[in-house]
């Protein structure tokens, strides 16, 4: 019974694609949480000190772009493997 289920799992479920899908989902969750936090703190900081809004948005863009870069690299690597 158990062996039959195992056999079914190996043939019916494509573990390669399953792994890739789960991996991509995790990457996106990480990126979304990170950039969301950055955006939130940036907006908070601008609310406290509006005259620093230029500096703050610059820093926010830098951090968001760096995280985005890592995300995209991870997605490309998952896609091609």
């Amino acid at each position, binding site marked *: 019974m158990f062996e039959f289920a195992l056999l079914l799992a190996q043939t019916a479920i494509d573990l390669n694609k399953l792994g890739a899908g789960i991996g991509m989902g995790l990457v996106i969750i990480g990126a979304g949480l990170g950039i969301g936090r950055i955006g939130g703190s940036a907006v908070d900081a601008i609310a406290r000190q509006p005259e620093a809004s*230029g500096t703050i948005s610059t820093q926010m*863009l830098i951090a968001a*772009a760096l995280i985005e*870069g890592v995300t995209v690299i991870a997605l490309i690597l998952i896609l091609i493997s």
Partner: protein
Amino acid sequence: MLLQFPPILAAADAEASLTDMAVSHVLPHRLHSEPLFSVSVGSETTTIPWLNIYNGHYDFYITNHLMMTMVAAVVVLLTFMYVALRIRVGGIGLDAYRTKGRFAQLFETMLTFIREEVVRPNLRGMTDKYIAYIWTVFFFVLFANVLGLIPIGYIAQAVTKDVSFSHLGGTATGNLSLNVVLAIGSFIAIIFIGIREIGAKAFFAHFNPIGWDDPKMLLIGIPLYFLEWMGLVIKCVVLAMRLFGTMMAGHLVIASFVLLIFSAAKVSTSLGLGVQVAVLFGGIALTLLELFICFLQAFIFTFLTVLFISTAVAHHGDHDGHDHDPFDERDQMNMEKLMSPSTMSPAVAKH
């Protein structure tokens, strides 16, 4: 004109699966059947697919991405020759200094935004020396991105009913090679500007932030030196990968979305027609998002390049003293100018 799927994608002709069709939309396609030249490398058995070396031969074809690179370059050249003509001072009285025509004024707005909000807060005095390179990078990436959104090939296919035209267009920056070249350009720019501004000795020494005097600190200093060099290389590599990934993935998503129609049509024709309506609206929304991403990625590439250049030329003893206002308007990027573009022109007085 012949499209030849690269052998990595060798699916059976009739039943190419839909994911393969979506992926082939973003891969480069050869525009002609015979290679322009062929270099033999290694033995008969060497096959390195990602270097296009098959059976010991490297064949050079002109692909659609290569052609779009040339098209983007020519369009940038022509556009800015025209814009420069219109911005040039000429005429009588005050009209001499006004930019003539809406097209030139549009590009002048974008040029001014890059110069005043991206480059000047970071490079300050060196802005005018290096603005030509920064402008070139920004507008080349922007034009290459946006030209990739125009489905030249599919329009040609629809008009001439000839399938071989379908891959005529393409996003130049969706090709990894072009992005690597752009990143190499940024790398060379950083090193060149660093050596030119602060001298070779100071430039190569600044990769060790601790300093070379104390022999005890040298233990950490030397690994840190290599780490900083690797950091610079990695930053440029990530610049390339970010642009490549966003451009390729954007087109892949739009392609898969449109191919949903075909997979629905396989089930039944009326389902295909229904899905067609939904995909039309979804496709429009996705393409608008993709247009925004094109502009954003060009901006981010330029902005990060300028940032890396400014950290490379940072003088260590450069602090102005206590009268330097940290929130000075001149040192910050002013995002409100994006919301009200009428204040972006260089003719608007700065306070």
